[in-house]
């Protein structure tokens, strides 16, 4: 009880730290970019706004002292996943400019489900972690050194299994997208 009282006295909603202010600002930008991603009618713009959202998340990881995850986020998501999505948009002959049929007919239902999910999740999360603070002082918890040590000391087997999974996915993607010759059909 006294511990909770002292931590509550040390932190407070009314005296946010610089990290908290930065986190909230970047979080607002990320959320706005995500909203534009799912609502815009221009397909290529959706992919470009996705870059903003994922880059904002990389900054959030940096603020949470998870450096390595942040750089992985930039490399994998911003660098390759979005490029893959843009390739997909171009290969499926997505229209440049506004496309009137970007949203399907069940938009009101989707909005209701999403609002209900957001309300329920935010209520539960805020109620559960009202008096919990992350201690960000001390050495960074996600530096490349630390992550490399734990990844290759404690998580070697999942890591290797994952590399086999990636190989299988790569081969599967190649097999799926290969054009069959006419006589093989």
């Amino acid at each position, binding site marked *: 009880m006294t511990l909770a009282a002292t931590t509550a006295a040390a932190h407070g909603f009314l005296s946010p730290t610089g990290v908290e202010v930065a986190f909230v600002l970047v979080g607002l930008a990320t959320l706005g970019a995500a*909203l534009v991603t799912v609502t815009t009618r221009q397909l290529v713009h959706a992919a470009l706004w996705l870059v903003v959202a994922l880059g904002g998340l990389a900054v959030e990881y940096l603020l949470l002292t998870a450096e390595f*995850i942040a750089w992985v986020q930039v490399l994998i998501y911003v660098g390759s*996943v979005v490029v*893959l999505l843009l390739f997909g948009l171009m290969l499926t002959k997505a229209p440049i400019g506004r496309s009137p*049929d970007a949203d399907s007919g069940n938009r009101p239902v*989707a909005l209701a489900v999403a609002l209900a*999910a957001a309300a329920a*999740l935010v209520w539960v999360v805020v109620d559960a972690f009202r008096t919990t603070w992350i201690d960000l002082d001390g050495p960074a918890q996600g530096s490349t050194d630390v992550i490399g040590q734990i990844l290759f000391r404690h998580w070697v087997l999942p*890591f290797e299994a994952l590399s086999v999974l990636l190989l299988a996915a790569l081969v599967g993607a190649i097999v799926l997208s290969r054009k069959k010759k006419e006589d093989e059909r």
Partner: protein
Amino acid sequence: MHLAYPAVLAALLFAVGLYGVLARRNAILVLMSVELMLNAVNLNLVAFDVWLRDALHAGQALTLFTVAVAAAEIGIGLAIVLMVHRNRGTSDVDRLRDTREQPSAEEKAEAAA
């Protein structure tokens, strides 16, 4: 930092992705929304790992694994979308209705009568 900030941001991002998955019609836009949902989960994992100061850093290791699985998912998903587009000439998920439930013959007869 207050733990509620990353947790609330992750919940809201997840809801935005959920809306995108349900409301979008182009299959590639649906894949983008799935990426948003996966990233919300990653933010939760990292925040709770940093909060708990886990000795094994299970949250961050799991985040790396999730990122790799998401990369595999986007590769396979795009390959499938491209194949559907090549065979059907559309990547519109509303028009892929091969497995929908057909109205039975009795209901048709009742409707006709």
